[in-house]
């Protein structure tokens, strides 16, 4: 019954937040936060159990097996922290009741998706999470709604309706919507004759996971959403697409006839790789931290999709591991962006810089998260990258794909650095002197999420074990996983604990050396006292290099930057709308024309009656 309690707490919390907001605005956030933590606690301490009930003759089946539990933890954990962060982040903003009610309902939807064991309830929760997130995506302002928010909902709708098509076709074909029944009937196999069912379902999931041609909504919407929700949006909601892919592809992974698996690996794997590369290139040229992070999310999801597509032991583990870790570090990065936005008023690199002295803790979070994102040892992100590469090289032999992925993740260093440099480093603005560190209410969730990266850097087994159980629960072989030794199919190992401790010890030793050597004489300079300009810049001057930061790189990439998927879709949209505008002219407004339509219709029907009736 844990499921019911979790959903109940979230829904009641949503309603409570909505109505409390009218009574006393101060309590809206704490109430929502309580609901978030309450749901997580309920999920932790109550047995999940199995819920079955019937509605309109369709049976609903919710169950918390290991896989559902894994994703439910991503959702509930991240959401609870994001809600805590929200309390101060949203302080003083309007329509908090609306915000928190949508937030909690959305979390309920995500949780429902995670625990659904049949396609109908999966779809229902999916839609709930979609429209609530749309409401949040347009929270900030209307300026983006016509193009950006709407873009999100249109793409989501296309995805969701592809899913719905598959669902009703599957229902017509197999007379059941249970995942287990469909799986047993082979409904998710390309070779089943109903190849369109898995294809349509995958299309639906691909939209949520922002896979290449369908990714354009994500960079448009993530930056416009309040950051406390974007953390969940990018961290947890996009993972639902990954969950769906896992569920659908299990059948193919488990009983693979060669060509199906090859097809998945080639199509999905390359789409994921291209997404990663393309989004990384886009992220590099962004000038706003939020845009950068949005594109980076798309890129990271590309890795995860590629990892899923392998269907191998290492690859699937990489997918689950990265899914959780991406939730942690991207969640904290969006929170960092939110913190900067709240304190400095903007996240545009060209307008602020040098916040490190003002917001040291925020910087620390950002630093840890970015190192983890870039996959540099000894933090957790590296483990995911390692698993992904080893899987592609040693298990699926996707040699050129691994190069593409590698290109993406190498280029990711560029935007990783840009994020840190743009916000926190460089010369301090005179106006930035008043900026202060954010409240601990915001820092604690950020630091908690960073801690995930740090701990998993040394003990990735903490994630491997639940993830392995999750994979086993859907019948995929997961094998044995050590606490901190990674090993590939060839038996080559990397001991991240040794790495972590070596780096840690050396770092501490040398840091002590360099700190205490001649400490007395060390003078701490301001960022204006730089040697090469030959003079100290005036307080109002800011020499920070921010515009066209990666211009040489952009020139090197060259032509690629000139094409834009977004533009393509917008053109299609504009063309469609123009076409609709043309079509509606059949309603001329002239009564006689309408009468003429009637007569023509009659005549046509009578002429062709033998064919029509």
């Amino acid at each position, binding site marked *: 019954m844990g499921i019911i309690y979790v959903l109940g707490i979230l829904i009641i919390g949503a309603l409570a937040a909505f109505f409390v907001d009218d009574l006393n605005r101060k309590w809206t956030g704490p109430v929502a936060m309580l609901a978030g933590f309450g749901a997580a606690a309920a999920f932790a301490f109550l047995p999940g159990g199995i819920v079955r009930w019937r509605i309109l003759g369709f049976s609903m089946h919710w169950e918390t097996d290991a896989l559902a539990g894994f994703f439910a933890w991503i959702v509930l954990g991240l959401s609870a922290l994001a809600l805590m962060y929200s309390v101060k982040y949203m302080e003083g903003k309007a329509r908090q009741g609306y915000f928190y009610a949508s937030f909690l309902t959305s979390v309920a939807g995500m949780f429902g998706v995670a625990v659904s064991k049949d396609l109908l309830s999966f779809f229902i929760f999916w839609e709930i999470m979609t429209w609530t997130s749309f409401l949040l995506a347009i929270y900030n302002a*209307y300026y983006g709604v016509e193009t950006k928010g*709407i873009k999100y909902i249109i793409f989501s709708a296309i995805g969701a309706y592809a899913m719905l098509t598959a669902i009703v*076709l599957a229902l*017509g*074909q197999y007379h059941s919507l249970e995942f287990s029944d469909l799986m047993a009937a082979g409904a998710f196999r390309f070779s089943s004759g109903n190849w369109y069912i898995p294809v349509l379902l995958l299309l639906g999931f691909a939209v949520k996971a922002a896979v290449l041609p369908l990714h354009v909504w994500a960079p448009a919407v993530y930056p416009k959403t309040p950051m406390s929700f974007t953390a969940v949006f990018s961290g947890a909601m996009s993972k639902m697409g990954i969950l769906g892919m896992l569920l659908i592809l299990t059948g193919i992974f488990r009983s693979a006839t060669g060509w199906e698996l090859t097809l998945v690996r080639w199509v999905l794997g390359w789409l994921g790789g291209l997404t990663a590369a393309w989004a990384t290139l886009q992220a590099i040229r962004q000038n706003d931290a939020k845009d950068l992070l949005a594109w980076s999310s798309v890129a990271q999801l590309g890795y995860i999709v590629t990892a899923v597509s392998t269907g191998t032991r290492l690859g699937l583990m990489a997918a689950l591991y990265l899914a959780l870790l991406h939730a942690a570090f991207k969640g904290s990065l969006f929170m960092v962006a939110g913190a900067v936005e709240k304190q400095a008023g903007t996240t545009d690199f060209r307008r602020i810089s040098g916040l490190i002295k003002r917001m040291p803790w925020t910087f620390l979070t950002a630093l840890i998260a970015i190192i983890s994102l870039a996959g540099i040892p000894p933090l957790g992100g590296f483990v995911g990258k390692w698993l992904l590469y080893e899987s592609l090289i040693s298990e699926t032999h996707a040699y050129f794909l691994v190069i593409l992925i590698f290109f993406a993740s190498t280029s990711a260093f560029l935007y990783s650095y840009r994020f840190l440099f743009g916000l926190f480093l460089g010369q301090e603005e005179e106006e930035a002197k008043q900026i202060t560190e954010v409240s601990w209410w915001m820092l604690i969730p950020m630091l908690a999420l960073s801690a995930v990266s740090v701990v998993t850097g040394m003990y990735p087994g903490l994630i491997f074990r639940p993830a392995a159980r999750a994979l086993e629960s859907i019948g995929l072989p997961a094998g044995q996983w050590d606490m901190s030794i990674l090993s590939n199919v060839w038996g080559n190992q990397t001991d991240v604990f040794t790495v972590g401790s070596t780096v840690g010890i050396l770092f501490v030793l040398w840091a002590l050396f360099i700190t205490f050597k001649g400490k007395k004489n060390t003078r701490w300079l301001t960022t204006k006292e730089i040697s090469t300009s030959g003079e100290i810049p005036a307080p109002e001057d800011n020499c920070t290099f921010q515009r066209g930061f990666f211009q040489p790189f952009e020139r090197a990439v060259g032509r690629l930057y000139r094409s834009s998927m977004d533009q393509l879709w917008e053109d299609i949209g504009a063309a469609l709308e123009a076409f609709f505008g043309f079509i509606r002219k*059949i309603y001329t407004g002239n*009564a006689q024309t309408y009468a003429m339509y009637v007569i023509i219709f009659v005549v046509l029907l*009578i002429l062709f*009656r033998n064919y029509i009736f």
Partner: protein
Amino acid sequence: MVVSPVHLIAAPLAAAFLIPLLNKLYRDAARVVPGVVFLYNLSVSWILVNRVFRSGPIVEVIAGWKPPFGINLVMTPFSAVLVMLVSFMAFVIWLYGFRFKRSLKGGVVMYYEILQMMMAAGSLGIILTGDLFNMFVFVEITGITAIALTAFYRDRDGAEAGFKYMLLGSMASVFLLLGILLIYTQTGSLNMAQIAERMPAVATGVKVTALIFLLISLGTEAEMFPLNGWAPDAYSQAPSPTSAAFAAVLGVAAIYALARVGFTLYDHGTVSGFLIAMGFLTMLFAEMAAITQTNLKRMLAYSSMGQMGLAMIAFGIGSEAALFGALFLIINHAIIKSLLFMTGSYFIYNLNDKRLRALNGIHKRLPYVSFLFALGALAIVGFPPFSGFWSKFYILTAAGAKQMMPLIIGILAVTVIEMTYYLRVIGRIYFAKEESEPASHKPSIQALVAMTSLAVLIIVLGLYPDLIAGFLHRASMFLLDKQTYIQTVLHLS
């Protein structure tokens, strides 16, 4: 108290003619009486619905002429569900319009109330009648009252919309008459049960021609694609409660008539393909026109046409699940679209501007109404957990059972269009910078009750559709069961 289906029609008709007299006695009689009548209707239909579902269809003979002669009313489970719906919606719409034009005294309001009652009576008549003759009469009654209501505001647009409606309505009635004439010459009867019994013997050519005429005329009323030029104008120019009634009362009756002709007079197989195709075209063109609208009520009107198209598709598919979905859709459409028209007209009332762009940021002034509008918009697009989802899902399921993949994809593609413009409006309401001056027309308490009850229904039906599922299943099975209908009606004699 003994009640019969006749009361449902007779009470509002009688009241409509009595109102002028009563109005002389009591100043606000015109406002109160319809409510009493509709409440009476509601209770009668509740009793009758129970009776129908407990002990089978009711056949009411009028003036002693037994079927197949004379005129009679037939209340099957299928019509019972719709009667209940129409009675309920008529009552809610009356409640909503209770303070309609309260600044105006007497006359105008009286005419409005009379026409509304006549329209409800006519619609109930269409649903209840057992013969084509009465169907014609009731179609005309609803038609004329609807035209009059469309032109109720004596402005140029109202008159123009009324004239268009009048022109197409008259042509529809001509074709209805021609169709009835053809059927009569072949079967020698106007009783639907008897026609249905004799229809197999009729030569195909004449049969189909008659069908075409009937489809054209009823299709005009049901807003089928090339015949629906009147609809956007009429919906947008009529007074707001009337727009709601067009969707919730008139539309229900029209789609009922279409279904009755398709399923009872003819074989479902004959009209199946036609209904699916035209339904889809209706939906497609309506939604394509809707997305580019700049006027709120026109947008809602086109959206109504789209929903009717979907209902036609469902009737065209014609399996039990599809009919279930169709009935559910009709109920949802009546409830949700009424809610949208009701809330939408409060926007317009406040803004004195029907354009969409005027809606920017209106939620600050009308928070509750905006909330209800948003709820309705989400529901009609078919987002779970609102009731609109289930009807759409059931219809799709029916299509899926027949593996009609192109149709499913088509419906859903059109739904994307629909979703786009509804969510744009939500975006405007909540997130745009407001442009116009605040006004202070808060909704009256009656209107609030009406709208809230509809909203509650949307949520309740969305979360617990099994509440009405039993009725709908019985109703849809009965529609499919032509023989029982014939026997029930004719065995009385």
